[in-house]
Structures are given as C-alpha cells and as structure tokens.
C-alpha cells in the first residue's frame, strides 16, 4: 500500500514494546492502519494525543525515529471477480506473482447481517462421508469446525469436503499453515480443476503470527462479495483457528490485559463469534458456509479455544482415530450438527432421523460393553452383538475415507441393524421398521 501525498509523516516514537509502539499524533481514527518503518500497524488505543499501534510483524529493529504514516482507513480489500483463482497474504496483497486485483475497496471486518434479513439455512450439503451426511448433515449458511488433534488428516478431509460440496467459490483462509499444507491445498484444488473457483488468503508458519489476525476478515470480506453481490454459494475454509486464537492471546498479553481461562483474552468468545457469525444464508440464494479447523491438545475440548468455539458454531465434527478398526472416524458422540434437523427426513429419506439416532444409541451400548470387557467382566450376548455392530459401523459408515450417497448410508445401517439385532432392540418408529427392515 502506497502512502499518499497529503499524509503527515511522524518520526518520533515515544515507547516501544515487543508488539506495540506509542507516539504523539493527531487526527487519528480508532482501528486505523498505519505504515511503520515499512511494516503494517493498526491503532488499538488513543489517549489524548498518545496513540498506540499494534505492529503485526513485531517491532524488532524499529528505531525511535522510524517513519510512521497513518493510512486513514481500517484494513481493506479490493473485491471483484478478479479475486477468483488468486493467492494473497494477510494484507490482501498477491503472493502468486500475479497482478494487483482491481475492484471496489471495502473495509474488512464490517457490520453483521441484520438477523431479519437472513433466511433459514435450508440447503443440504453432501460430502459422501457418512460421519457427516448421515449423522451430522450440513446445510449452506452453517458454521462448523473440525475438532482434531494436530496429527489427524483434517486438512485432507476438509479439502475433500470442499471439493464435493458443489460450492460456487471456495475461500481458503490459512493461518499458520505449514508450507507443505499450503502446497497440498494448491495441488488438490489444481488437480480437481477447481483453481478458478478458489480464493486463498494465507499466512504460513514463516509469516509473523500476529498477521494471522487479519486472515479471517479478509477471507470473509471476499466471501461476502461473492455471496451477497454475486449471489453465489460460498464455502469458507478456516484452518487453523486455534493458531488464530493463540495470536489473539499473544496480543492481549502484550497489551497487559487480564487473561481469563487458559491465558486467553476475556473477549475470546466475542472475537470468535464475530468471525463465525459471518456464515449466512441470504434470501436471494447466496450463502456463506464456514468450515473451520480447531486443533485440540490431546483431545481436550474443555480448553478455552474449542470450548468457546463449540458455544458459537453450529456443531462440531470430531475426528478421532478408532484403534479398533485402524481408521480415522467422525466420532458420533462428540460430533454434532445443529442444523441437521432442518434437512434430515425432509430433504433426505424419511427414516433418516430415527435410523441415525438408533445407530448412535447402539454404538453407545457398544462403548459400555467395551468398558465392561476392559474391566474383565463377562459379556452378554447383546454386548457381543453391539461390539460387532460398532466395528462394522465404524468401517462401513463412520470412517472419513468414505464416498457414498445418503440413501446408501441408510440402507447400510438398516442392514447392520438386521445383521445384529432384533426389531425391538433398535427402537425405531414402527412404520419405518415395517417399511425398511428388509426380510
């Protein structure tokens, strides 16, 4: 971003910390961006003529006589159809060697959609993965994260989901993405011939961590352009939101704010909600669906980051290695899609809700049986059957390497019921048992 002729240049910094600088300046707006010694900064506090700026790239090497130029606007992005197929950094500058994008300048992190101008999310998204389509069906306009330990293949699963979801645009917001994962996304999208439908904003592990804070707003500003102005179905991928939250805590810590749980800022809920709530279904058909990744520490979902995320998003997809079958599955217990009610049994087959619940209940019985087994007790015949069912269910339905349609998922589940249980044991509405319990 270039400086403009009339802008005043300041050259006296009074205070410097690791992440912030303070100087005397006038006529500065809150949230305004500034160029400090060639780095981007943003106004975070003003007291009289004392202005404090957060420097995204850190303050290392910034001298007290560095040039500070205020840009007169908050973070911005130029939006137009030219964004498609392009790769950008956290400031919206191209990193793919291509030309600058031309388009309308919009402030990022803008206001939210008036709730009464939203439509109820209602369009089913299918992914071919039964852990999602059968147990946790997604709809457009939903926001949902994968909860996964760092060693799980969440980016791969997410890329698959994105490509199968039939979105008009896929917007990737990469935060602290390893270079390998960055190239992986690039490759998969390229191989799928989808590059022209993709827009990427990427902060890799090589970039300063605090810059990540700008990524979601950039990605969602682009998403709003396509979803609202172009009325497209937009899918936003945010990975890894845990690293985003970590950057928040770095900043708040350096600003001496009182931390709340797990050294996270007290505003974590609001900070995350501001991002996730950009997911929306517009009445005109355009939509923003957010699929995110929140990496966990040893499966701990009580940590402030997954915990606050769970309170904001419309469910979560919990990835877990099932050691009984040696496959990564979408765990039916801790996973949830809260919007599935809007589509299951209506846009999918009528028996879907009951079959889904019955299978999960039986899977829970299997878990109890396994506990019994681990404690050295004898298993009943029913216990044995649930354990067998659980294994088959994990391999044939829960594993993330699946790609089948929802009818097939339901039929497979009925087959497993029939193979392992009596009609009464599955507890499903009589009409459905009569209809789908194949002789």
């Amino acid at each position: 971003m270039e400086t403009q002729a009339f802008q005043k240049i300041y050259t006296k910094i009074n205070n410097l910390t690791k992440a912030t600088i303070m100087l005397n300046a006038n006529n500065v707006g809150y949230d305004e961006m500034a160029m400090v010694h060639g780095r981007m900064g943003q106004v975070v506090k003003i007291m009289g003529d004392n202005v404090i700026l957060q420097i995204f790239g850190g303050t290392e090497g910034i001298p007290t006589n560095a040039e500070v130029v205020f840009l007169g606007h908050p973070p911005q992005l130029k939006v137009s159809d030219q964004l498609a197929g392009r790769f950008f950094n956290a400031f919206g500058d191209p990193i793919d060697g291509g030309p600058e994008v031309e388009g309308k300048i919009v402030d990022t992190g803008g206001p939210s959609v008036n709730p009464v101008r939203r439509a109820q999310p209602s369009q089913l998204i299918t992914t071919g993965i039964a852990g999602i389509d059968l147990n946790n069906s997604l709809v457009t306009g939903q926001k949902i994260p994968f909860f996964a330990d760092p060693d799980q293949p969440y980016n791969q699963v997410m890329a698959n989901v994105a490509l199968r979801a039939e979105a008009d645009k896929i917007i990737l917001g990469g935060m602290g993405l390893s270079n390998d994962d960055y190239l992986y996304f690039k490759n998969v999208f390229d191989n799928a011939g989808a590059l022209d439908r993709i827009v990427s904003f990427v902060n890799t592990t090589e970039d300063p961590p605090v810059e990540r804070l700008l990524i979601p707003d950039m990605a969602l500003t682009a998403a709003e352009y396509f979803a609202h102005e172009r009325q497209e179905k937009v899918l936003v991928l945010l990975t890894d939101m845990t690293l985003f939250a970590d950057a928040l805590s770095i900043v708040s810590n350096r600003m001496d704010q009182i931390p709340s749980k797990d050294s996270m800022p007290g505003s974590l809920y609001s900070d995350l909600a501001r991002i996730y709530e950009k997911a929306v279904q517009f009445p005109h058909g355009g939509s923003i669906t957010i699929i995110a990744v929140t990496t966990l520490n040893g499966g701990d979902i009580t940590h402030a980051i997954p915990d606050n995320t769970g309170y904001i998003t419309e469910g979560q997809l919990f990835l877990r290695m099932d050691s009984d079958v040696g496959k990564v599955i979408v765990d039916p217990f801790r996973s949830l899609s809260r919007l599935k009610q809007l589509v299951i049994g209506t846009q999918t087959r009528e028996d879907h809700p009951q079959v889904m619940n019955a299978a999960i209940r039986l899977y829970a019985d299997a878990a109890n049986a396994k506990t019994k087994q681990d404690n050295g007790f004898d298993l009943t015949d029913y216990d044995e059957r649930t354990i067998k069912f659980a294994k088959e269910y994990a391999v044939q339905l829960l594993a993330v390497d699946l790609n089948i349609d929802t009818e097939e998922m339901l039929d497979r589940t009925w087959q497993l019921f029939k193979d392992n249980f009596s009609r009464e044991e599955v507890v499903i509405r009589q009409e459905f048992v009569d209809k789908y319990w194949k002789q």
Partner: protein
Amino acid sequence: MERKNKTTGTVAGIIANLVIVKVEGPVAQNEIGFIYHPENKLMAEVIKITGDNVYVQVFESTRGLKIGAKVEFENHLLEVTLGPGILSRNYDGLQNDLDKMEGVFLKRGDYTDPLDREKKWDWTPIAKKGDNVTAGAWLGEVPENSMPHRIMVPFKMEGVYTVKNIVEAGSYIVDDVIATVSDAEGNDIELTMVQKWPVKMAIKAYDNKPRPFKLLETGIRTMDTLNPIVEGGTGFIPGAFGTGKTVLQHAISKYAEADIVIIAACGERANEVVEIFTEFPELEDPRTGRKLIERTTIIANTSNMPVAAREASVYTAMTLGEYYRSMGLKVLLMADSTSRWAQALREMSNRLEELPGPDAYPMDLTAIISSFYARAGFVYLNNGKSGSITFIGTVSPAGGNLKEPVTESTRKAARCFYGLNQDRADSKRYPAIDPIDSYSKYLEYPEVRDYLTKHIGEGWLDKVAKTKNLLLRGREAMEQINILGDDGVPMEFHERFWNSELIDGVILQQDSFDDVDANCPMPRQKYMLEKVLDITDKKFAFENFEDLSGFFKRLINHFKQMNYAEWESDKFKKYEAELEEIMKERLN
C-alpha cells in the same frame, strides 16, 4: 435528572468500545449520550465518572472515531418505549425495530422506532372521569393480537392523580391523547398510549409480590412432573455447549401456558433467532389456536452485535416483561445465554481496569445476577388482579464445569436448577436435564404442594418423590453393576436399574422435534407416570438378567410408540393394549 440544557463534552480517549469523554457540566451514572461521528451518532452509556472524565461504553463499533469528537448527553438513562405494538416485533438489544432498518447489513447509528405510530388501535376506556389513579392504573385497553393490552398511568408518575377526562371508545393512534389527569396541585397532564421507562430499574407499580404458588405448565415432562417451575418462578439451565439449552428453551416457549413470551437472544447465534422468525408465524399456540408469533417478542442481540448492547438486551427484555405483567398477564421470559451477558460485563470491567474477581469477572457479578432474577415474580396489582414473569435463563459454563462464577452466582438467584448432563446429551437422551442433580425449590413450598395436590391429584407428590427415588436407586444399581459386573450383582439390582431406565425412556426423554411428543400436557403426563409407576410395582418372573433387560426394552419401545401417538388415539390405545399383553406373559 432535571437539567435545562444538554451537557456536552468531547472524546478524549478510545479503547475499543470504551470511550473517555471530557465533559463540561453535570452527567449522571448510566446516563445516555451520543457521540457525533462524521456520518452518524453513536449511542453510549455512562459507566464511570472521575472528575470531568466520563467513561462511556459505546453500543456500536468505534472504528474511525477520533479524539475531539463532540458528545451530547441526553438527560435520561437507557429507556424502552412502552405501548401497544410490541408483540410479534423483532428488536435488537436497545429495542430498535430490526424490520424497520434498511439494507441487509446493520448500519451503526441506525436507531429505529420500536412502535408503529400510524396504526390505529381499538380503544375501550376502563377508568372513568373522577377516578383516583396511581402509576400503573389501567386507563383503558386495546386488543393487541387478541391480547388485552392495558394502557396505564405512566410508571414514572408519582402520587395520586384524578382522571379529568378520558376519551371514548374508538380508534386512536398511540400518540393520541387518551386521558387527561390532574395532580394534587391541579396541574393537568395529558397521557397517550406511550410511556418510557429506564431498563435498569424495576417497575414496581404493583401492590405486593407473594411467593409464587401456581404451576406453570411447560409441556416438558421432566420439568413439570419432576421439578416444576411455577408462575412467577425463576429457573436456570446450565449446560456445556450442544447439550440442548436452546432447544429446550424454544420448546418451552412454544408450549408453556403463558400469555406473552419474550425471548432474549443474548450473544447467541443469529440462525437460532431466524429459526424463531421462520417457525413461530407457522406454529399454533396449543391453547388459543392462534399463531405463536402473536404472543411472542424477540430481543435479538446476537453474538456479532456490539457487546455493550448485549448487556442492555436482558434488561430491555425484563422491562418489556414487567410492562406486560402490569397488565395482569402471564409473561414467560427467556434469556439465552446469561453467560454472554456476564462476559460483556467482564470485557468492560477489564477495560476499566477494575480489580477482577474469580475468572476475571467483575466482583459484583453475584449481586448483579441476583437483582436481575429478583425482578421476576408473581404480583398482585393495585386493582387486585395478578400478573407474573416467569424467568428462565441459560448458563454456558466454561468447559462445561459448573463450578464457575456465572453458574454459582445464578444458583444463588434462581429457584429451579435444570442441569444438562453431558453424558445424557452424548447418548441423545434429550432433554438432557439430569433428573437427580436438578431441583425445584418450589416443591418445598407448602402453597405449591397444596396447589399441585389440588390440581393434579391426591398423592401426586408422593408419586413424584417415588419416581425420584427410583431414579436414584437405579443410578446406584448401575454403578454397582459397573463395578461388580452383570453376574456379580443380584437380580434385584438389574430390576432397579431397568425400572429407572423405564422412567428415563418414557418420562424423562422427550423428542422436541416430534410433532406429538414435543408437547405433553399435564393430564397426559400424569397418566403416563402412573402407568410407569404401576409397572415398577409389579413383580415379574425372569430367568436371568438378559431376559429381564429384553423384556424392559420391549416395554420401553412400546411406551415410546405411545409417546409418539396422538393422546388417546386408536394408535395410542393399540400400543397400550399390546403393552398389557406383553406384561401379562410375565406376571406371576
């Protein structure tokens, strides 16, 4: 606040939505001010004053705001506008009518009128010329979506007034003068259908507030049967994310026997509010046959809306509730989630650099929550009629751990505790209300006990106590079975366990997404409970515990089919008959 001119000031500091204003003149704590921003005015509330530095929390984003911006204080606190036309509205936390806002995206500084100024209302006078009236007295009424909306003497008016004139029955807009009253000195005051009230103060225009005593039916079995809430009562629903707080509140708001339902979406998801907008105009109130939306008002301060307005939203909702209560109506107020409100307080307290209490919440959190819950209640009005606000809030404990400040503070304030259990939610045993940890203090009130006995039946309370006991014994039995193994315990333990499973499956679990099962009126609850308890009294013959569990599973399955069937329908009776058959086979 009697001030001739508006006090003004200028912006001297900005930290996110906390702004420091240098003032020239007097201001009051919690006074409202507007900050002049180039394109619009931003509303703010005074939260701290030190000398001529006034700290205000801005209800909007302060992006682009500069030092030196002009501020004007309004001489009043944060107020709501009260009058006919509040029902079926969608307001934001500051009572702006969301439907009146232009554009798809919210614009800051866009403040819209909560009432419709042009609509004509069918007025019928109640008070007569010469009547002596005080604040809250009913002057007349207009039908608002078939509900009698009483037009009252403004709550702010102190002392006794004489009605000098009251307009005849007819059609009027809200701003028409409908009455003239004179005070003791003979000054005339003209009254319209509209009045204002500051949200942070309770409306006390009633005669007295007895302990609540009447059951408030919610249609939720595990609440009404086991731990009932009462008209004018308070309750809270703590639960980790995804355990079913919102679904439960929505279910209650659909089926509870209330005249007016106010839902405050406080820092939660916009899509959940959209669900209400979309569904309530379609759904019928089971008691009146009218559309649910007609009795409902939504206060939507979703999580992406400004944080300071989130705090205001629960007060706005409560004040609207108090307004309708003063009309002699039964109000049900829901707030989802009160934790987000507490977090808004925390964010501000941190910015003010106040000494933090536990988990960095403000020190006076408990007091704030208590005085809020205390505004609910059953009241006798000055005219002898009664009205009530039943309040149910959700709490979202961090990490699902109930030993955190918001849950603990709320426990001190609310009389019913509906704790959602993660294990129950995980195994889809909805509603996930833990039947053993949860409680209703109202069950200890003699007046409530009398009421239940009189209205549900002799011996009802014993049945409830017995049910709870069976559930407890069932849980103990299960623990023993888990420790000692199926074969390591006597058959009796399996019997106990399965009796509690039967109660769980038939009474506790309820499918909020099933058209029939979602709402269970009291007579049906009673019928089902008695049927289940009958079974727990019977002695059956079993060969072994597997035989026993198989039998109970069949019973539960049949009972569930009954729950899914229309009350007393042929289908219902068919399953009931089959149930009898199954039992006969086993009875010794």
